[in-house]
């Protein structure tokens, strides 16, 4: 069941301009063009933000809110800014709109009524930037804990190991002189305390506050239904250490008997401060960090970041786009990654359904072969750090070899192209068919998944769901077609779509997508042969770090888990700053969780684990 792809770019950038003009007519004086160098979109006065957003959604058709984030312009106007990227679900470029607020008492109206998908993202901006979203029903910290001192993404907030605004730190470079960061604090730990710390009044209230949000204590209450059946209402905590939560994710569920009445995702247990570290890092320094976002699909994360920065670089004078071979290799890597990811996702969905580990073993066996290829090319199995701005780090090797020939180690030595040809034409399709054969008609799987975790089409759009979750609900939205990048326009493939919006369809769509990926890979192989020997890097190798022109950019790719976006701002030194002023990641795993509560309501507690598995989250990306 694969639909014909929607036509790419039916609405060109002119349409966005028309939309902006309409908007200006509707709110004269309240909507201004963003005229800063390298910026686009409009700045909307926050007093009319909710009405304007409603008009943007209903009248102008930008009904899919992709990303919401905050930026601190300390020193450049001294205001905080909330940036929204809205798209039409039929494809085309974004309407970027922004709202500004002073830094003290920062407050912007919440758009949760207009775009429910803004829910978790607004909480994140509140947590990390300290922007209050007026009208948000549950404005609590999300990644950090209640009581944390300050809002770390504000530019005047300094971490305990603070050395300098940007890397490379003067203390280490050029002399290579390093010191253990622990020496920076008296405590020998990564901690700092405010001067007014009162230890006598210290108590950990994070847990009680969490449960108070549920509107119910942890004690058991009786409830008698109309039929006279007595059930207990209680709150159950799953995670952060739980065998089936895909890492350190936590859910607090309110149960009536065994039925879920309310579910609250609790996250931040893997919040590694990706964005803040990214704003200290040099531009190309962030590439290996993106590997660790969705750590199952490192290659595609690389591509998203490369695309975002290339957009900025393209403003500059001496920019050459990546070579054709580089683009071919990029697509090869990304589509292989998609297969790795979906295999993993299906294997572990089965785990969540109770088929402990045997299906997963089958599903991830083919992954090892793909990883062998990644390792031979990029040097690492999981963390490739492979893409570069304007190309890739190196060409694929002539042969795939094992590094050491040890006893009991059957020597690996293959011709890379033969290896890939066999992988793409035989092994991977075979593995997909095998899963299909064993699982798709399985009684138990069908009983457990059909009709469970239903997410209707309009709700999927409203909640900004992305990737397989969105497409399994009948929305054929795929960034590769909606706003094509790389060589996707010349490749022949379909956007997979299913219509029932339940776990079973989310399982099936992953099979469909893997088959489409194989189709793409089969077209990539001849292109690889044809471009053999060509350069894979269009930049200047002598320049270690390119100067990135001023401006903003939002680069997005269709990651296996959904739309991965990077919002980067280059600001400061007019010759091109060393590091991003803002580096925000629109993480599909994170935003897909917004709808988890909706999907779980009314199901049994055993089902929510499977529902979570069908969303396919990865915590590195959810918490960042």
């Amino acid at each position, binding site marked *: 069941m694969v639909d014909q792809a929607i036509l790419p770019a039916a609405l060109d950038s002119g349409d966005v301009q028309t939309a902006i003009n309409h908007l200006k007519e509707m709110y004269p004086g309240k909507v201004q063009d963003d005229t800063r160098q390298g910026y686009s979109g409009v700045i909307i006065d926050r007093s009319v933000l909710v009405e304007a957003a409603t008009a943007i959604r209903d009248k102008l058709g930008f009904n899919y809110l992709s990303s919401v984030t905050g930026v601190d312009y300390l020193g450049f106007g001294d205001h905080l800014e909330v940036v929204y990227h809205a798209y039409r679900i039929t494809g085309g470029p974004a309407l970027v709109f922004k709202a500004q607020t002073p830094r003290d008492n920062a407050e912007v109206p919440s758009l949760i009524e207009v775009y429910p998908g803004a829910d978790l993202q607004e909480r994140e901006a509140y947590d990390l930037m300290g922007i209050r979203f007026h009208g948000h029903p549950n404005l609590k910290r999300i990644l*950090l*804990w209640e*009581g*944390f*001192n300050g809002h770390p993404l504000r530019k005047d907030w300094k*971490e*305990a*190991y*603070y*050395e*300098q605004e940007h890397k490379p*730190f*003067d*203390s280490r470079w*050029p*002399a290579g*002189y390093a*010191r253990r*960061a*622990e*020496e*920076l604090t*008296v*405590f020998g*730990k*990564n901690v*700092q*305390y405010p*001067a*007014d*710390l*009162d*230890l006598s009044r*210290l*108590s950990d209230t994070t847990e009680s506050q969490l449960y108070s949000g549920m509107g119910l204590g942890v004690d058991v209450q009786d409830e008698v239904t109309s039929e006279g059946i007595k059930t207990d209402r209680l709150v159950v905590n799953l995670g*952060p*250490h739980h*065998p089936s939560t895909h*890492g*350190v994710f936590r859910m607090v569920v309110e149960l009536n008997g065994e039925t879920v009445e309310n579910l609250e995702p609790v996250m*931040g*247990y*893997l*919040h*590694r*401060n990706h964005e803040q570290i990214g704003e*200290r890092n040099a531009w190309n320094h962030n590439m290996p960090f993106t590997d*660790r976002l969705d*750590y199952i699909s490192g290659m595609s994360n690389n591509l998203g970041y490369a695309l975002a920065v290339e957009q900025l670089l393209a403003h500059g004078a001496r920019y050459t786009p990546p070579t054709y071979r580089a683009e071919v290799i990029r697509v090869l890597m990304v589509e292989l990654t998609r297969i790795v990811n979906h295999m993993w996702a299906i294997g572990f969905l089965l785990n969540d359904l109770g088929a402990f580990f045997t299906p*997963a*073993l089958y599903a*991830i*066996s083919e*992954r*090892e072969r793909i990883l062998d290829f990644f390792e031979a090319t990029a040097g690492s*199995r*999981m*963390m490739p750090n492979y893409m570069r701005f304007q190309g890739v780090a190196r060409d694929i090797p002539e042969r795939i070899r094992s590094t050491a020939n040890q006893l009991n180690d059957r020597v690996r030595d293959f011709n890379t192209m033969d290896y890939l040809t066999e992988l793409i034409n035989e092994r991977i399709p075979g593995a997909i068919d095998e899963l299909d054969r064993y699982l798709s008609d399985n009684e138990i799987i069908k009983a457990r998944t059909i009709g469970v975790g239903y997410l209707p089409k309009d709700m999927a759009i409203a909640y900004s769901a992305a990737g397989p979750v969105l497409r399994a609900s009948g929305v054929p939205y795929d960034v590769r077609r909606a706003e094509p990048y790389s060589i996707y326009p010349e490749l022949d493939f379909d956007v997979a779509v299913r219509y029932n919006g339940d776990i079973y369809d989310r399982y099936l769509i992953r099979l469909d997508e893997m088959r489409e990926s194989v189709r793409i890979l089969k077209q990539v192989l001849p292109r690889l042969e044809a471009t053999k020997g060509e350069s894979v890097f269009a930049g200047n190798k002598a320049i270690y770090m390119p100067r990135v022109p001023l401006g903003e950019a939002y680069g997005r790719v269709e990651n296996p888990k959904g739309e991965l976006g990077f919002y980067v701002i280059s600001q400061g030194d007019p010759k091109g700053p060393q590091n991003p002023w803002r580096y925000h990641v629109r993480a599909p795993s994170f935003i897909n969780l917004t709808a988890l509560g909706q999907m779980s309501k009314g199901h049994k507690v055993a089902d929510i684990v499977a529902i979570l598995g069908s969303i396919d989250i990865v*915590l*590195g990306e959810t918490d960042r």
Partner: protein
Amino acid sequence: MSELDLRELHNTEFPVPADMQNNVAITSLSRIYNWSRRSSIWPMLFGLACCAIEMIATAASRYDTARFGMEVMRASPRQSDLMIVSGTVTKKMVVPIVRLYNQMPEPKYVLAMGACASGGGPFKEGYNVVSGIDQYVPVDVYVPGCPPTPQALIYGLIALQRKIDGQSLANMDDVPWYGVGPSDPVPIPILGPDIIDPRQMELIRQQAERAAGAAGKGTRDLPAAVMDIGKPRTVPTVESVTAEVKQEAGVPAVEAPKAEPAAEVDPEKAARIAKREAALARKRAAQEKGEN
């Protein structure tokens, strides 16, 4: 353990008749105890971050930890012997980790898998990241890598087996669980304005009092050399470093040992560094001029 070879357990001069060698072993209590424990280490099914994916790959069919009797991953800490800390430890997560560690029955072991668990890793400077799990719970084996390859993890597991082999029932001080009585649990950290290790309460109190006094925030007991991080610094030479160290130690800086003639210093690199220094100085001067 594919084949049980009893001879590997033999620990005595006492000869076992050749025809009984497959049935009888004469060994010490420590030895057999350690042997059986190290051959059936049950890790906790517990993943933190990217490293957990490689941990799962290690347990899967290609690398197969079942060869070491470790395939039984237990979801409950009460049934597990080994905690593989597979990933970045955040301040928010260290609280449950310490709790889980306390819940594990002894004998228990901790393996820090990857750069993050060992020392903070790539995310070390992050405000929510703990610089290594060993700041809270004792670690037996560190496995470097980001992520460690499955081979590296297996090597770490073998190192743990060796460590267990070396432990002695006879020596009660060897490991806490061979001593008398239960050992103390690790105090559970508290999430305040930042994470608070109860073992550091006293230090934190002192610092807070200091800060509340006239000095205000920022007075920290830091060695002089640390305070100037962030300021432009000159490239340390042998002399300057020795002088610095001497001063810190409270010893008057006596004559520094004569720097070796520049034989080891790559002249090209030195020239590059000097050039950069000069450029930086010019830039700084220009900035200062601009500010005035």
